[in-house]
């Protein structure tokens, strides 16, 4: 690890720890002597999440997990390495290297990379002359095209380069453009020569990449200029590119290189700093190297191993964290919080904590002191931690902590209503109900208690019944009406569904009982 990293890491960590201590001190609670703060209305969900964040910030388990993830992230950052995206295609080549950039690269830069080349600027902005559009290819030939007995692509360019070296602009035989028109348009004295450009049109440098203006292929169909009469070959010495692109235009720079292959292999890093990709001739094909970086297999293995190690640690220590959260959960369940609500609050709170804890790492990576793979590793480990916490919360909390279904309700009044009157009244009310049909109603008189038993059929399902029992007993001078509802079904209904039926039946019956007593 470089010394600068440590120098940056230490103050950042110190500031971060100070913030944690300040936050922890602020929320530690009030002692008797302190003045209580003003009472504010706070959302219960927000308060719960705040508590989870506070608890997880101060929990030794989370701190140990974070320590593990931080050490692993720094290790991964140190061991990771990247390579340029590489692809090998088997094709016949007429050159040693093809370098392509989607912008204008000055000729001096190209000179610093290679010595023998053909430089082409494909100007995608059309030149409007006499209501016809022409497309310019600005070319620089930088190889000895007169003396060398070339057998590759250079032999085809011999004629073009010869004309271009004498400052001729080349157009196709069938082109309507002439010397006067072109000179008038460009505002300079131009010498035009017309040759057959049909060979140039079909010159494919890479699959889908042509010497003339092309923007690639779609479904095997290459998108390029098909009409050779629309092409103008302009020598670079005219310096026309700035005039053509005065209002901005799309330019593609292509360099067809003829230097030794080894030279290009050594220059790959420099080339890809400027250009988008380079294709280097190899035995029986072309190796295309793109500037987009991909992690090496070793880096991926490093991330995988660090993930495994962090998962081992998280699994080993996560139990303690879950226990801490569950101790809070048990209090919440008594207050009526559902399991899902509690689980969501814990996961959200933990995620917020881990997100806040990631800030030092992210800032160091952002400053470029460590590789950004560290952040990726952190994110992966945190996702693993959250998923594992979620799974363990479900398995530990399970059914035990599921809130009991609310199936009973008590109502105490001083007025007594006779059993027969109550039974007939309830029958009358429930028979008009939209959701339930009455199957059976009976009243039972015991010595100390009176019972009304009602069997309700839920109309929206096939075989779901609600058994309602109303107990009427005396407490001092008052009468207590206690309603119990039990739902059962022959269908494969979920617990939530049965719970909602139960609540519905309970509300209908309690409503009926209250209206019967008060009527």
């Amino acid at each position, binding site marked *: 690890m470089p010394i600068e990293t440590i120098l940056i890491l230490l103050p950042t960590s110190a500031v971060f720890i100070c913030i944690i201590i300040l936050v922890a001190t602020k929320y530690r609670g009030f002692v008797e002597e302190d003045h209580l703060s003003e009472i504010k209305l706070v959302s219960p969900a927000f308060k719960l999440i705040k508590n989870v964040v506070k608890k997880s910030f101060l929990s030794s388990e989370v701190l140990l997990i974070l320590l593990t993830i931080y050490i692993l992230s*720094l*290790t991964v950052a140190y061991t990771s390495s990247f390579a340029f995206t590489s692809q090998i295609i088997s094709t016949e080549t007429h050159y040693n290297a093809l370098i392509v950039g989607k912008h204008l690269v000055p000729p001096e830069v190209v000179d610093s990379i290679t010595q023998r080349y053909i430089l082409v600027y494909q100007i995608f902005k059309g030149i409007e002359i006499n209501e016809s559009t022409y497309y310019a290819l600005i070319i620089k030939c930088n190889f000895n095209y007169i003396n060398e007995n070339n057998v590759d692509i250079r032999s085809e360019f011999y004629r073009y380069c010869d004309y271009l070296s004498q400052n001729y602009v080349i157009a196709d035989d069938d082109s309507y453009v002439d010397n006067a028109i072109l000179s008038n348009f460009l505002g300079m004295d131009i010498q035009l020569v017309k040759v057959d450009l049909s060979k140039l049109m079909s010159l494919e440098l890479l699959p889908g990449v042509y010497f003339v203006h092309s923007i690639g292929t779609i479904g095997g169909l290459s998108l390029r200029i098909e009409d050779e009469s629309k092409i103008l070959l302009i020598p670079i010495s005219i310096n026309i590119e700035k005039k053509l692109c005065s209002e901005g235009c799309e330019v593609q720079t292509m360099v067809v290189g003829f230097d030794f292959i080894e030279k290009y292999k050594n220059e790959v890093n420099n080339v890809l700093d400027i250009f988008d990709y380079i294709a280097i001739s190899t035995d029986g094909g072309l190796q295309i190297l793109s500037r987009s970086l991909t992690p090496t297999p*070793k880096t991926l*293995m490093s991330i995988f*191993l*660090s993930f495994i190690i962090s998962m081992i*640690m998280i699994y*080993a220590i996560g139990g303690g964290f879950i226990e801490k959260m569950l101790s809070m959960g048990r209090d919440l369940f008594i207050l009526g919080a559902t399991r899902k609500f509690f689980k969501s609050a814990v996961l959200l709170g933990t995620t917020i904590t881990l997100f806040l804890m990631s800030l030092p790492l992210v800032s160091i990576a952002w400053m470029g002191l460590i590789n950004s793979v560290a952040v990726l590793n952190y994110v992966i480990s945190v996702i693993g931690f959250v998923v594992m916490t979620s799974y363990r919360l479900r398995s530990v909390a399970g059914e035990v902590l599921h809130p009991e279904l609310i199936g009973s309700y008590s109502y105490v009044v001083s007025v007594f209503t006779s059993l027969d009157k109550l039974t007939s009244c309830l029958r009358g009310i429930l028979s008009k109900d939209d959701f339930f049909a009455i199957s059976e109603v009976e009243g039972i008189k015991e010595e100390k208690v009176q019972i009304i038993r009602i069997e309700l059929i839920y109309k929206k399902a096939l075989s779901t019944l609600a058994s309602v029992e109303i107990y009427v007993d005396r407490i001092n001078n008052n009468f207590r009406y206690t309603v119990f509802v039990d739902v059962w079904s022959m269908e494969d209904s979920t617990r939530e569904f049965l719970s909602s039926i139960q609540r519905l039946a309970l509300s209908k019956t309690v409503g009926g009982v209250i209206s019967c007593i008060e009527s």
Partner: protein
Amino acid sequence: MYRELVLQSAKLSITGKGMIYIILFVASSTIYLFMFDIQLVFVNMMLLSFVAVLTSILSDKKTLVQYILVLILSGARKKLILICIRVYLILRLLPIIIAYVMYLLRFSLYIIMTVTLIAYVVYMFSLSYVLYKVLRR
């Protein structure tokens, strides 16, 4: 009696759930070390091994606390309790020490190996003392 308690501590250390985590950690970290022969990776893995021992103790917290409390309640002396904790810790550290020593021997890094061993011994002694203090409280 000393022998029985030492054996009991050893049994507790080996059969505990934390031992599985330690072995898994040792396996994965050793692969890591052999993949990347860089000194910084070794230092980081050593730091992680300290954390791993702590986590393994925390995962067996209930059993260990119960065991030490029984020893305290039955009138065991500080020296005996410390010996029991150290036996427990040594067995937890043993897979890590073996793996890392083998790794260092492969590259003939004898000085680093000695420093590592000293670091583990110091860690073991200090942790046993801290554990005793925490449990005694």
